[in-house]
């Protein structure tokens, strides 16, 4: 029993210092308009288009009672059990988004080969349905799963959180990975019936 408690203590300490715990692992920068490239402009067009398309579908769904307003605007997330690491959640509309939005996401992902991902996130950064490419079944291999299964997660690191809460027409952030690559993260907010719901978020190599 005492041994168990020691193990627990050690695990807690490890957790405290583990890199996954820290959200400050990348260099982040917001790119203002005067620094945008042509690619950025092109991507912004795609993102706005995607945002618009998502908005239309969500509003139409509300109109046709495919989903209720309380369900669509909920901020309750229920962790999937057993708890994955990082944790994954479901909520009332998860299944709906998967069915209605994922095809749109996949469509925009293919529009430009530079696009790494194109997803719809809610106001807390929750990704109900990631691109199919990133929604592969879990294999049990943590490294592989981290790459292939990124759906149903809440991405609320500074970049993700900034994208989720942004109500300006767009937000372009760039950040460099420790591999040396530089990624751009472009988000355009989605309003449903005039109410801020979330954002369309496109990541592409710059």
């Amino acid at each position, binding site marked *: 029993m005492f041994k168990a408690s020691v193990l627990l203590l050690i695990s807690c300490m490890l957790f405290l210092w583990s890199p996954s715990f820290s959200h400050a692992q990348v260099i982040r920068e917001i790119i203002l308009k005067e620094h945008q490239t042509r690619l950025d402009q092109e991507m912004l067009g795609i993102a706005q288009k995607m945002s618009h398309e998502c908005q239309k579908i969500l509003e139409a769904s509300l109109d046709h009672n495919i989903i209720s307003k309380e369900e669509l605007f909920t901020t*309750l997330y229920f962790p999937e*059990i057993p708890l994955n690491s990082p944790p994954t959640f479901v909520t009332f509309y998860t299944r709906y988004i998967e069915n209605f939005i994922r095809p749109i996401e996949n469509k925009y992902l293919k529009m430009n080969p530079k696009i790494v991902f194109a997803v719809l996130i809610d106001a807390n950064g929750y990704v109900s349905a990631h691109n199919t490419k990133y929604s592969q079944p879990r294999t049990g291999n943590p490294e592989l799963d981290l790459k292939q299964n990124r759906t149903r997660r809440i991405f609320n690191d500074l970049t993700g959180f900034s994208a989720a809460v942004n109500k300006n027409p767009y937000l372009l952030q760039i950040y460099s990975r420790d591999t040396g690559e530089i990624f751009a993260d472009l988000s355009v907010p989605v309003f449903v019936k005039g109410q801020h719901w979330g954002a369309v978020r496109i990541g592409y190599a710059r």
Partner: protein
Amino acid sequence: MKLMKPKHLATKLSFAIFITMAIGIIIAAVLLAFVVSYQAEKIILQKVSAATQIGSACMEASLTEIADNGIYSLNEIFDFTLTKITLPKAIQRGYSEHHTPQELLTIQKYHYQTGLDSYLDNMILELEDQFLKDTEILYAVLVDKNGYVPAHNSKYNLMLTGDYKKDLLYNRTKRIYTDPVAKKISENTNRKKVLKQVYKRDTGELIWDISYPVFVKGRYWGAFRMGVSLTQLTEFLLLISLLLIGFMLLLFGILVFLVYRITKRMLKPLVDLQQGVTQISSGNLSYQIPVQSEDEIGDVVLAFNQMTADLRQHIDQLTTTTAAKERMESELKIAHNIQMSIIPKLFPAYPERPEFDVRAILEPAREVGGDLYDFFFIDDDHFCFVIGDVSDKGVPASLLMAVTKTLIKRCAKENSNPEIILNIVNNEIAESNDSCMFVTLFLGILNVKTGEIHFANAGHNPPVILQQDKPAKILELQHSLPLGVAENYSYPYGVIKLNPGDVIFLYTDGVTEAFNKNKDLFSMEKLVQTLEVLRTVFLKKMVFGVLDSVKEFAKDTPQSDDITILALKYFQVEERRDEPLKETKTITITNKIEEIAHLAQSVEAFGKINQFSAKVISTLNLALEEMVSNIILYGFQDKKSHPIQIRLSYKGEQIIIEIKDDGIPFNPLDIPEPNTDQSLEERPIGGLGIHLVRKMMDHMEYRRELGKNRLVLKINITKATFLD
């Protein structure tokens, strides 16, 4: 192994040990369980306290990081304003249909106005769940200062179902807890104090709630709270206790078994001893108990074996002695029977002799006595009687007594003089008297016709004479020596005359010297007095009367000497006195046929003296010839010489012939009448002569006495004349 009845010592011992130990073990186990329980609880609480502190630190780090990253400002983090969450209608319907507003308030969920709770969902859930890896920990959550839980552990964060009870239990996130425990947690803002509270779940389970405050940038934000169930611990301790008891019992079971075996082994000599005692008590005295130990039990066994050996020896001796005694007793009994058979015991002894009556009795002190009495006819008129006392008692005395009796009888047949008889007997006894025994004896010969008694005395007690119309008197005798003391001793003798009705009473010193417990003697005087009283009664009564008074006198004192009494009463026989025999002749011949001629001469001589006619003489001769030749021819089976005694007497008008022989018993009167119808040839040989004699005689009489045939023939003179 028999462990049922606590009968054996080993079982009893092991049982006692087992009971004592079992009680001890249980008490020890319970005590141990308590101590372990207390210690374990302490350890767990310490551990959980530490974990809570770590949890608190993690939460603090998380919140601080949020502030540092600028995701939320510090003000936003400390903005505890809550907004109600509106649930989808389907779920709300599920709650509202069955529950009161109060209950609905309990299940009400909130968000921070800032949305921090949703941010925390992703951030701290994994951390919080880490603490639940220890199954004792029921929950580990961050609460704010108002008791609001922004992100509960994943297992209390299940998808809402619309079932009130389920959701109340399994989706506890984003609710405000206002129970006393939660309130107390909110009140603890002391960094140094880990708050420990115990409360009871609705299941009755005891739960420890451990909490430690969380500070963000030095400001109190809330607390990290953990719940520990001690049920597992209790169960574990119970298991431990049971295992302990079980193991201990097993151990002590083995121990008790060993104790049983060891005790049994140690007690084996005792068991052997017990078995040995059983064997010995059942009579097996040759049983030797094996000695197996050198302790006290071994000593007991040795002593016991010694005792058994001694006992066996004693019993063997006793058996030998008893056997010898039994043999002796049996021999004594035989001797007694022999002794009693050689003295005449049949009374009245001579019913055909009206002249006198004789009575005698012998009471030996032991099985066989040294006293003797005897009486017999020497001839028709002389009756000999003897009383004597051998100087000892028992077997030797009885042997001497038998010898004496035989000697007297033999001598009396040859001599009719008492003193000479005693003289001869004395010489015989004294000659070979190596054992120095002697005999006092009184011998008398009564002439039944005259009543005269010729007597001789050898140191015996004087007889008492009871005469008609005279007081009883003791016969005065000269002093004399007993038989067997000195050879060729002349014994004093004398004559007394008994008148009809007189009694001579003889006795041995067993009568006069009988004593009672005061050592008083019966004495002569008392004997004479007794006889005076008894003088008128029958002789038989007199003898038994004296015996009874002697016994009455001695009472409980055991008889010390043989008691012998002989009494003789003489009667007057008138007619015989008037008609005495005119002539008597005794002829003795041997069993040779030539002797018959000699007999005929004697008969002729007898006839001439009595002036019988020739016819009478020839009749007598014929009868005698027939009977004697019969005896000579058929009476003896050996070739030896035997005497045949013929006594002829003439009395009144009657001739009496008495023939005595010691041949085989033969009663001529038993011969049946011959069948005269048959021809001479057909008749069986013999019998005719006897038949003839029967016809001739007026009276015939046969008796077998003292191993002799005695035939008496009587013929009246007139008839003999008639035959003539």
